[in-house]
């Protein structure tokens, strides 16, 4: 497996519990698609400090700050996974958030679950969506912006339908824009 030696790789940390352990599957897809080394580190507690009591959602930007403080190594990217619902102040929700060209990102499984939409729980679907959400945010950390190709993992996901249509991999154009 070729690796990007110029980078300190990616570590994946869960914040609180997720309904299904997505970390391993996310880790392997990120290694495969982005060719970066990836490790899973011990879980952190549920980030209650970022809870907005009125919205009953967690502030994704505060969580990114927290992650960067908790993992200060400058050459290491950190992807957090969580089961809580995330938001940024101006939007109703986000599936995930990342610093564009930065080193922190977070994804939430909250709205990726079939149960959220009143359907039956489906572990396989959840894992597949989590892989896409993770790949997407890692792409942002590596400086990629949204792609018009609906199949590319960097296509914007503003609804679950967008997520379900796209694949877990990068289109050739986005792949060629990855830092070498």
């Amino acid at each position, binding site marked *: 497996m070729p690796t990007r030696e110029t980078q300190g790789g990616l570590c994946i940390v869960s914040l609180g519990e997720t309904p299904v352990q997505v970390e391993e599957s996310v880790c392997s897809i990120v290694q495969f698609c982005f060719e970066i080394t990836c490790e899973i580190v011990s879980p952190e507690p549920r980030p209650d400090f970022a809870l907005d009591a009125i*919205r009953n959602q967690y502030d994704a*930007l505060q969580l990114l700050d927290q992650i960067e403080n908790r993992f200060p190594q400058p050459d290491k990217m950190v992807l957090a996974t969580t089961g809580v619902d995330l*938001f*940024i*102040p*101006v*939007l*109703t*929700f*986000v599936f995930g958030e990342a*610093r*564009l060209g930065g080193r922190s990102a977070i994804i939430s499984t909250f709205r990726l679950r079939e149960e959220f939409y009143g359907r039956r729980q489906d572990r396989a679907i959840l894992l597949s969506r989590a892989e896409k959400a993770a790949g997407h945010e890692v792409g*942002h950390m590596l400086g990629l*912006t*949204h792609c018009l190709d609906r199949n590319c993992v960097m296509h*914007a996901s*503003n*609804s679950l339908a967008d997520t379900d249509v796209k694949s877990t991999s990068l289109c050739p154009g986005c792949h060629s824009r990855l830092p070498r």
Partner: protein
Amino acid sequence: MSKPARIMVVDDEKVVRESLSIWLQKSGYDVVPVEGGQQALDLLDREEWDILLVDLKMPRVDGLKVLRKTLETKTDIPVIIFTAYATVETAVEAMRAGAYDYLVKPIDPDVLAMKVEKIVERQNLARENLVLRKKIDSLCQFDEIIGNSKPMQNLLDLVGSVADSDATVLVTGESGTGKELIARAIHRNSQRRYKPFVAVSIGALPATLVESELFGYEKGAFTGADHMHMGKFELADGGTLFLDEIGEMEPKVQVDLLRVIEENSFFRLGGNREINTDARVISATNRNLKKDVEEGIFREDLFYRLNVIEIHLPPLRERGADIILLAEHFLKKYSAKSGRKKEEFSPKAIDRLTSYNWPGNVRELENAIERAMVVGKKPQVQAGDLWLDKSRTPFTEKGFVSLKDAEKRHLLQVLGETGWNVTRAAQILKIDRATLYNKLKLYGLSRPKKRS
């Protein structure tokens, strides 16, 4: 790839403007967060913006003020107002003041993304449209019409001066003289050039179809009308409707056509709704319509309606040196098309071209050149490559040509032989050079352009 859309995000709350800016940047937009209304207005004057996203409630200069000030000078910038304190009153006020949209915080990401995408898409189309219009403008010369002869220059002057009026035009001339080309030139040089040019050949349609082609029909208007069909008058709305071979029109349709021209409205066949149309009518004929009117074949009132301006296209045989200009144009055209390179005509071929009567006019000339390109083996087009109807050469045709025409042809023949060496031509003609030059000027003859 085109330049990303430039978006200004105005909100006094830092976390909102920054998170929104970063969120938009991820879609590749060029986003600038701005912390207040006044700063927004300052930046608006100094830089170019595609979209403004402005918070309603801000101290001092609020969102509505930014909106109003923006639209005072930059009416085409879409301004989206967003607020966490939505009321019906502010929403109505913002929309009345010209906001593109009014969104309530927190905003559904799907909704916001779609609104922004829609604006960007519309702006890209508008830009593309502008580029295409410029392209149309650049085509709006008389490039397609070739001719330096006096009658053609007069005709082009006339085309230029009538283009901008809405008057009907009747283009007359023999078959093959380029009547549709003239109609297109009028359209392209008129204010209607961005709207459609729709051509209908009345003679090519069975009489029973002319009405349904021109006026369209409603579903069920007749057996087989299984869907609504728009007529050419509707399709040409805002543009030009070119009715070729108008002299072939049946009397019944002549009445309908007269009504449309007089009232600018019509009914589809089987329809009961009056449809307005703003199509300029240009018609063409190779018949003598006036004679048809006298004989009662063509309605007199329609004739005068169609004939506000008459443009008569001279036959090719009266266009002197244009024959060679056109022949060279077609030679170039078919060289490029066929990949067989032929650069010029032999002197004998020029003689052949200029002495022929061209009953089929420019169309016949074009066909002759195309055929010569195929059959000719030498780099020069030879007289033998031009398969012309020999019975049509001037001195064997039924009527004699005028002295003027004969002189013109003779001049061209001699000049063709001498390769346009005026001194030699003058010697052959036994006249002095000044006289020859005067005659060239008189007949609008000039040396065919040299190819590089």
